[in-house]
């Protein structure tokens, strides 16, 4: 049996050697000396000597800029079979689980059990196409030290964060300093795949990597946290995707503020119109990867999709209509499309985060069609199937019998994306009212 309090003290002592950095980052502030934005009911803030985790008071029910930018250590990506996996380690920190339902009561904040340990993340992508796999895989992680397994096997959560996009992750408590070995078992991927991805990902693979948990690591990840000016906290907008793999393959573990693997330009996006799809700056991450480069899970911008783009019935002041702040792109691929059955058309719905175009996985949605006020097809609606396509990436789709211009298409969100959330995403994509679209006139 271990003593949590003792652990905390040891941790403080150890990290205390890096006080210069810590003080800069404000890490050792405790509940007493932080402002009212601190979640005071929570003992894991401050006194664990993990960086403090201020929350935004009354954040918008939308994507917002978090209070700080996390820092992390990137490990070398590992290839196994068809997959490449890039592990990333940060300090244990809160995140949110969606508890299966809609509305703000259905999200639950998860605090780390102890300060000692890591927040372990990995991005998984297809080595051939470079597509990040935002899939619901039942991966299993086992951790060992000196050949002895630590704890029980464990399934990481699928998560989204503004900087990392879609990834898998969890907080993992660790007691001792030293080298840890991680085995990640990847079972076949159950997600429906199409295009060049059809018939792929049918083998199980195991990826193994090691990491060092020590003072240098803690100094790096704790010292690298960047707190934003309080005036920006909670602003609508998002952090830029992380510029992975350029400057962070450190082995020395000594990092200053500039070396923690994120853009230092203050290029956050504001919530003005039209930024949903046209920034395109990381779109080139799809399709290739050089050694050590970790792709970001950005969907193609709206204008990269073929077909007849459906028009939102209600005037939207954003480029794409939003539901629960999720940007919803919908297009109708003509019959003959490889995705459609027989002579049907194919409705492709691609929900994504605003600003960074991160795919919103693990939703359930259905569509109903009305022509002149009368239901067409199944009045109860047609379910859209979550699909991963080599060209269109993650989307939800269904074959539909010939639609006509003027048809009203209602997309109903039975469940919002069930993926876990990092700060800045936990108040968005929860309550998602239906959206209505119209099939436009032939051009």
């Amino acid at each position, binding site marked *: *049996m271990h003593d949590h309090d003792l652990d905390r003290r040891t941790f403080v002592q150890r990290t205390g050697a890096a006080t210069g950095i810590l003080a800069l980052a404000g890490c050792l502030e405790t509940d007493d000396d932080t402002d009212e934005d601190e979640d005071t009911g929570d003992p894991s803030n401050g006194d664990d000597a993990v960086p403090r985790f201020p929350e935004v008071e009354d954040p918008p029910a939308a994507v917002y800029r978090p209070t700080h930018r996390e820092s992390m250590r990137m490990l070398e990506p590992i290839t196994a079979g068809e997959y490449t996996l890039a592990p990333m380690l940060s300090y244990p920190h809160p995140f949110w*689980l*969606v*508890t*299966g*339902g809609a509305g703000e009561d*259905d999200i*639950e904040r*998860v605090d780390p*059990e102890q300060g000692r340990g890591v927040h372990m993340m990995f991005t998984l992508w297809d080595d051939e196409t470079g597509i990040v796999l935002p899939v*619901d*895989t*039942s*991966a*299993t992680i086992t951790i060992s030290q000196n050949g002895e*397994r*630590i*704890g*029980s*096997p*464990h*399934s990481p*959560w*699928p998560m989204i964060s503004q900087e990392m996009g879609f990834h898998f992750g*969890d907080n993992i*408590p660790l007691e001792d300093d030293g080298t840890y070995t991680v085995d990640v*078992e990847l*079972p*076949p991927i*159950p997600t429906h795949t199409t295009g060049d991805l059809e018939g792929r990902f049918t083998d*199980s693979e195991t990826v193994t990597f090691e990491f060092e948990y020590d003072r240098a690591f803690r100094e790096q990840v704790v010292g690298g946290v960047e707190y934003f000016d309080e005036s920006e906290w909670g602003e609508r907008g998002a952090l830029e995707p992380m510029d992975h793999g350029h400057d962070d393959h450190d082995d020395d573990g000594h990092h200053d503020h500039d070396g923690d693997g994120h853009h230092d330009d203050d290029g956050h996006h504001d919530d003005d119109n039209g930024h949903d799809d046209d920034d395109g700056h990381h779109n080139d991450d799809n399709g290739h990867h050089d050694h050590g480069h970790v792709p970001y899970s950005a969907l193609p911008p709206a204008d990269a999709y073929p077909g007849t783009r459906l028009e939102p019935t209600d005037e939207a002041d954003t480029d794409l209509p939003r539901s629960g702040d999720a940007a919803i792109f919908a297009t109708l691929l003509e019959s003959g499309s490889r995705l459609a059955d027989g002579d049907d058309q194919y409705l492709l719905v691609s929900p994504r985060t605003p600003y960074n175009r991160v795919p919103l996985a*693990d939703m*359930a949605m259905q569509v109903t069609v009305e022509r002149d006020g009368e239901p067409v097809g199944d009045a109860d609606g047609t*379910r859209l199937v*979550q699909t991963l396509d080599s060209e269109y990436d993650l989307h939800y789709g269904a074959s539909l019998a010939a639609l006509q211009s003027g048809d009203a298409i209602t997309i109903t969100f*039975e*469940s*919002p994306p*069930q*993926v876990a959330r990092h700060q800045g995403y936990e108040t968005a994509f929860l309550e998602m009212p239906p959206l209505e679209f119209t099939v436009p006139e032939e051009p």
Partner: protein
Amino acid sequence: MTLPDRSALSRRDYLRTLVAIGGATALSACVSESGAIDIPAGTDDPDSLPDRQHAWNDSLSRDDDGNVQPPDHHVLVPLALLDEPTDETRAQLEDAFRTLERAYEWSTDGLLFTIGYTPAYFERFDDALPESVDLPKPTALTASEDPAIDEFDALLHLASDHSQVVLEAEEGLFGDHDDLNGVAVETDLTGVFERLEDQRRTGFVGAGLPAEHTDVSGVPDSVPEDAPFFMGFRSGFEGSQATEDRVTIEDGPFAGATTQHVESLETQLRTWFEQDSHPMRVRKMFSPEHADENLVGDVGEKLTTTNGLTDERIDATEADARRGVVGHAQKAARARDDDGPPLLRRDFNTVDGDRPGVHFLSLQHGIDDFVRVREAMIGDDLDVMHANNGILSYIFVTRRGNFLLPPRSLRALPRATPQ
């Protein structure tokens, strides 16, 4: 084998640890710890015992709601035959079992036991098992598992509320112990079977027992005090269990037999208790409605003789999945048919290998029933994220075995086609 440090453990935990260790030294430590307890004696009249080996329910104690309660302590002893079965070894085995029945009452205060035979055992016979017995070789049932398969010949299941009894019975059959509760051991199993120590499995079940194991790495302090099972809830309500009749093979030469599946799994309790909230655990274990309507209570104390699943809720499984979360019991209950639930679950907790887990032991008419229910539990047909698909993301299957539990009259090295 070194014994655990007595002073570091509670009495119950010490006894549990001794069962896990097994052997003569553990037995004598157990006897001196338990002191002289009165174990009710068995019977000289084998005909007074039930024909079915799996007829335990009439001899089990009941909880306040009237549900049968499993015995506290369990040992699964894997056995490999040393030689091909002969009439002589059959007689030796039967004698040894009768010794156990003379020594201990057929009850949780005494001893309950079964012996089951694997498909690998029956392969030695020229004839295949009769049609009436469905006993295929076990296979992996989920995409994420790569289980070891029980390929030895037989599995002995010993169960009692007294750790001393399971240890003593095992030592009487395989060790030097020659006195069982005042009955002299004249025949044991030496020469017939070899005990496969490295695959021996042990466990426990009962309110409070799981919470005594927070010293084991992977068992968080947050395991509820009163929980009978590691994952924190009561299980085995009468309404969600098959009857012994239902799981009994009625026809053919093995009439009175049943099949047994043992799925050994590890559990991830840290994330279950430290990350999921209680309502979330209720959703994932029972159904979303159980959480919304607060039907369960802390550990299931609000439930009585059923798990509270209405037909309506079971039918709503698919819709609940699309709303985000689906419950384990809800999903599994989809496999009920006109005769009710097909499985008689007799699973128990374990800390074998110093890791929390479950030996999920279940009895059913044929292994196909087990597979059908397990598939309902996997829910490949459900549109739900793995992490919200019942308890699937908290359990990790390590081993599977299928067994035939013949009727008592055929329990000693049966032929594939008994006359």
